[in-house]
């Protein structure tokens, strides 16, 4: 997989909430937000492709994608007269585009890394076929992991929805949360310092 494929994938996925709003909503605010999302997604993807620099605007796409959802339902709508952009019937489809946008966010990071790796390797004058081959494998592997995560995330959510809720009190819930939190952090710090073994 080359960086252009990653660029297209990251742009389409990141801009998917914008395309959805553009296609299925009619209000001025929603149209403005949709165009803004598409424009920023394009700029971010181009920046990742050309410069390979970390762009903080990536978060803006996510925030802009969540704004229509926050304005349409939840706590904010209870206290403020907000315009309803997303109808309840279309909620599931829009949430899928947000998750896809999150995946696009990961792929934009991958494109950045891809471009930066390529620049460094070209400076070091590696053979062109080696650069293309190794970065191609790199892109395909991480892309595959991203898709796998996306599918697994969806399946896990469905599994959670199917399973009956646990009726535990607040105190046991906090204890379980802390236990999981400590285990995860110990795992992270154990891996932080890597040491290779060579023979």
């Amino acid at each position: 997989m080359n960086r252009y494929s990653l660029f297209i994938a990251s742009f389409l996925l990141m801009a998917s909430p914008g395309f959805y709003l553009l296609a299925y909503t009619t209000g001025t605010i929603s149209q403005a937000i949709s165009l803004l999302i598409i424009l920023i997604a394009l700029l971010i993807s181009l920046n990742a492709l050309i410069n390979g620099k970390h762009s903080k605007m990536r978060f803006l796409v996510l925030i802009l994608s969540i704004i229509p959802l926050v304005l349409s339902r939840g706590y904010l709508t209870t206290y403020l007269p907000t315009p309803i952009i997303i109808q309840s019937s279309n909620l599931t489809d829009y949430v899928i585009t947000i998750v896809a946008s999150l995946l696009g966010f990961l792929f934009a990071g991958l494109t950045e890394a891809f471009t930066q790796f390529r620049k460094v390797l070209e400076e070091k004058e590696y053979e062109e076929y080696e650069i293309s081959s190794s970065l191609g494998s790199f892109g395909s592997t991480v892309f595959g992991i991203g898709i796998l995560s996306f599918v697994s995330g969806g399946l896990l959510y469905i599994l959670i929805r199917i399973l009956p809720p646990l009726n535990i009190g607040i105190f046991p819930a906090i204890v379980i949360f802390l236990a999981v939190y400590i285990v995860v952090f110990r795992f992270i710090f154990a891996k932080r310092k890597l040491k290779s073994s060579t023979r």
Partner: protein
Amino acid sequence: MVNQWTKSLMAILVAGSIVAIGAAVSTTPSLVAGILTIAVFLIILYEMETSPEIKFEMNYPDKAYVGDIINITASVSIKRGIGLFDILLPMVDSFDLVEGNNVHIVYKGLRYLEVKFDYKVRAMRRGIFQVGIISFNYFPSMGIINGISDSADLKKEIEITPKILAQEKLRRKYRTRVRFPRSHVSNTGPVSTDFETIRQYTVGDPYRTINWKASARSAENGNLLVNQYEREGTKSVIFLIDRNSSTLRGTDEENQLEYAIQFALSSTRMFLASGFSVGMWPLQSKVQERGDYVLPASGMENMRRITNMLLRMEKTVTRKEPINLGKIFYHSLLETSSTVILLTSLQAVNMPEISEVCRKIASYRGRTILVDIVYYGILMKYSSFSSLGNIFSRSVQSSNWKKMAKNIPGRTMVVHWDPTSQKMGQAAGIVMGVLR
């Protein structure tokens, strides 16, 4: 690169947090699927990005000659870990990359990786080189963890020996071009009754050695022929090698010291094959320690010792103190009555100390054959006026030699050798002629 990746990890976590806040404020539980996507992504990469286990294997000959092309094969196998591996295979300054590349980048995905690399190098200089250190950098795929820079030492060496060029030529019998001294330069025992060869009569040969029958057979030429008999005892030669900065004109690969080493090695092989005892000393200021020199001895075992010494020989800094060859040198000189072959490059700068060394050798009843490795040719080879090299070289040479000849003490024979215009065999032939 590594910093960028660490930022990526932070970015993924912040993105997850934004979605989580959005899910909470909008009371949309289905957004949890997004958080789960990020969580699964991170967990997979955390599980994959573990410490890699890397195994290297290298194949190449242990020994080669200067100028040879060496084929190096490296096999790299990587278990565990996921990411880019930047591998730097061994390369020495004195090697010239001829084919392939010693720097590679490979990507280790989910599967076990095994790759082979081939590259060819040309050995430009003699020596013993460490060709077993492999460096590598590991850049984990998503940079969630920091990368590694490490190296592996396979503890392998390659021995590059100068080509022994003079050997074949020196198998022929050389005759001295000088009439005096008439006695053999190397002090050996009396003439034995073991026949060696028939040669032409020269002034000073005893009449009893004249081979009348052989002379009659070649009467057409009108030359008298004499029998030559083996002498008892072993002839002994000690090489002295000057490795001061004055012997380093040219490049690292081609200078007087390198030519001196090549000459010494080739001559040693020839002398040992002819039954001589051969020793080797470097010219240096500090007192010589065992291991710095090789005592005169015959047999091919001494060839190995001398080769080892010559392969490790490197330049010294400019001498500030007078040359000190040590007691052992002078003791062996007296004991073996060796001829000393001093390999240097005569210049105004080193002339006084070289003369002093020759004088001291003479005081110990030793004789010196001073092989002056002329550097003008080498300099001209690397200058832009290469076409004028020979003319310039010869005119400067002759004027300098005349000046320097005044300082050469008695019992010293000087042989000038310009390695760029004169074959080593010729120079060795002259030395051999003086020795006989």
